[in-house]
């Protein structure tokens, strides 16, 4: 079940929140856990093993955390066991299929036909579990004594399947003691609907351009259309994920939690280094806190710093998917960020126009590495972006870019505007104008519901994680 679906909005939300708000505060965690497990079970009906693994992870982390507190002399062993358990699950479901395929190509293994389906949310709850164990091991937090509270932390549906990646300290207080106020519910609902609109009314339609171009085939598109398509993909990816994060944050607010922000106008960045402080913030924080710093960060000299950065970016790439293109993407980011730090990052920061132009080109180029699984297709796409000769700029359909520009320009215009801070400043300015906000929300919700009813919705891009 996804947030941007009719069953979730019209059935799950009313049913769950009615029960939740009617329940006294001290039992709210019970309802939240039950609701979250139902939510996850609905998505794993045809794969009950996925649900079992999820419950196993919750149970393992809870007991390992308690053991670390009660037997601190063995905490490293418990932490290691927990990390190995989590990475083994993630490794199997996420990478085993790919590795076996590659092995099959290299060595004659016979006809191995293994179809391993990725349990939804595993990349996110794995990282949350590891962060919890690491924090207990470091002494940052005490292990949660209540299984109920811990299970709620790991399973709460609003952030379960696509983040933000919430660390335990962030929600510890509210897990134990929260009261949901009307303001929280109102603000949460506003944020949820706004996120829904970004996803359904902007990300989904503009993403169709990338789909169209894939249907045509890269060899048959003109250079202008290739650039339009990769810009469209960049906007789709942002508003898809940003929209979903807002929905998660909105739902969290409606539950009484303050989830962390996950995006901070990333497309306004002047360097790739800055971009990755503004994009998927909780993932970047996680890698910094639980990989980069434990490895020594930048405290052990230049070579070690480079090594640590390489590891972080390689893992960032691989976390996003099992494929050579993700490895290439991660390594490319490492190289770009390294060059920025060493040579020209400061210059770009000092000359914003240069920084914006630099990023306007680099962002879609790096996202194309992310989007195209097949390396040969990647090469073909780049040959369309950068044709070797003027003859290769156009396609047999000479007006292809005009056709698609006429279809998609409103979405480009809206997308570019929503990348800036202006619309959010306007919303902030008029947030107390009930008529304006109410009207806007009603329009967004009605339009989104209509699009979902007509089947214009697409699965959230990040669900393959």
């Amino acid at each position, binding site marked *: 079940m996804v947030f941007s679906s009719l069953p979730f909005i019209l059935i799950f939300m009313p049913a769950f929140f009615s029960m939740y708000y009617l329940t006294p505060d001290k039992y709210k965690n019970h309802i939240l856990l039950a609701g979250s497990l139902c939510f996850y079970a609905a998505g794993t009906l045809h794969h009950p093993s996925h649900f079992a693994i999820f419950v196993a992870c919750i149970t393992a982390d809870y007991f390992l955390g308690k053991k670390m507190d009660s037997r601190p002399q063995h905490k490293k062993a418990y932490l290691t066991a927990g990390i190995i358990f989590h990475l083994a699950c993630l490794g199997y479901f996420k990478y085993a299929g790919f590795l076996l395929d590659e092995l099959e190509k290299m060595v004659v293994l016979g006809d191995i036909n293994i179809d391993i389906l990725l349990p939804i949310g595993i990349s996110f709850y794995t990282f949350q579990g590891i962060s919890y164990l690491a924090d207990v091991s470091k002494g940052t937090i005490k292990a949660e004594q209540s299984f109920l509270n811990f299970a709620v932390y790991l399973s709460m549906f609003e952030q379960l399947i696509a983040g933000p990646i919430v660390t335990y300290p962030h929600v510890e207080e509210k897990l134990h003691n929260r009261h949901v106020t009307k303001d929280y519910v109102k603000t949460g609902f506003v944020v949820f609907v706004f996120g829904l609109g970004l996803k359904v009314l902007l990300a989904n339609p503009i993403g169709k351009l990338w789909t169209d171009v894939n249907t045509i085939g890269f060899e048959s*598109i003109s250079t*202008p259309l290739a650039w339009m398509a990769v810009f469209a993909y960049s906007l789709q990816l942002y508003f898809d994920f940003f929209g979903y994060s807002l929905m998660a944050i909105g739902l969290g607010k409606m539950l009484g939690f303050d989830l962390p922000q996950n995006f901070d106008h990333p497309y306004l960045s002047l360097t790739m280094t800055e971009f990755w402080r503004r994009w998927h913030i909780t993932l970047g924080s996680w890698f910094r806190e639980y990989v980069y710093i434990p490895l020594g960060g930048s405290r052990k000299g230049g070579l070690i710093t480079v090594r640590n950065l390489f590891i972080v970016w390689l893992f960032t790439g691989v976390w996003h998917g099992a494929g050579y293109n993700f490895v290439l993407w991660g390594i490319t980011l490492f190289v770009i960020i390294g060059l920025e730090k060493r040579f020209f990052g400061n210059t770009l920061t000092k000359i914003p126009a240069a920084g914006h*132009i630099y990023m*306007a080109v680099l962002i879609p180029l790096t996202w194309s590495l992310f989007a195209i699984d097949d390396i040969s297709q990647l090469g073909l796409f780049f040959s369309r972006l950068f044709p070797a000769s003027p003859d290769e700029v156009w396609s*047999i359909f000479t007006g292809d870019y005009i056709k698609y520009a006429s279809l998609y320009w409103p979405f480009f215009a809206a997308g570019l505007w929503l990348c800036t801070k202006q619309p959010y400043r306007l919303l902030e300015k008029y947030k107390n104008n009930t008529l304006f906000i109410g009207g806007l929300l009603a329009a967004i919700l009605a339009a989104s519901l209509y699009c979902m009813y007509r089947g214009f919705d697409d699965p959230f891009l990040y669900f393959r994680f």
Partner: protein
Amino acid sequence: MKKTVLILTLLFALLLTGCGSQKGEPAPNEKLKPEKQVEETQEEAQAKPTKNREPVSMKNTLFIGDSRGVGICEYGGLDEVDFFTSVGMSVYNVFDDVVSVPNVGKIALEELLKAKSYDKVYIMLGINEIGYQAEEILKRYSNLLETIKETQPDAKIFVHGNLHVTKERSQSDKIINNPAINRLNASLEKYADNNRIFYLDINSLFDDNEGNLDPEKTSDNVHVYAKYYIDWANWLVEETTAKLSEADN
């Protein structure tokens, strides 16, 4: 910041207008287009020995179709053909829709049929309405054929069978699957009298050896890659020539 956004927007607009200024340039890859057809009149064609019929001219030709027809229009290189095609077209909306026909303008089908005279009319419809009642689909298809016969008394009509989907799509979709497409195509084939109305089966060109659309030829399991529309166009010309030759016999 505002200046920078303005600069970026202007750059983006310049990119598009700069490309627009290239509109007049000839498209590359002329070699990819179908070979130029020898012009001939109908009388000349009928007088010739039918075994070695010259490839038909695609002038004075109308193609009515759905999204696959849009693909042939945009990537097939049949510039002489009038394409009355749009995504989602079906026998349910073919008379209601106003379509932008290249070199003609925005026009409804009946208006187009009354305004111009065609030698050949192709119809490729069916995939978008395949979930509806078969009898109703065929009733509307018959209605379309009758309208064309009345408004285009000299035209040969080519009922173009629907392209298969891939095995993956066929096995996962209860409505749009190859058994359903085959049933529809079999019904459409019955309209052919091989004198005025002919039936064309595209699937011989793009099927794999299991009778499904070859997955290597498609990205979305439904439409072939654009590069194959040239082959589709060439096949159309060849099949049309062959059918007309047989009819001449």
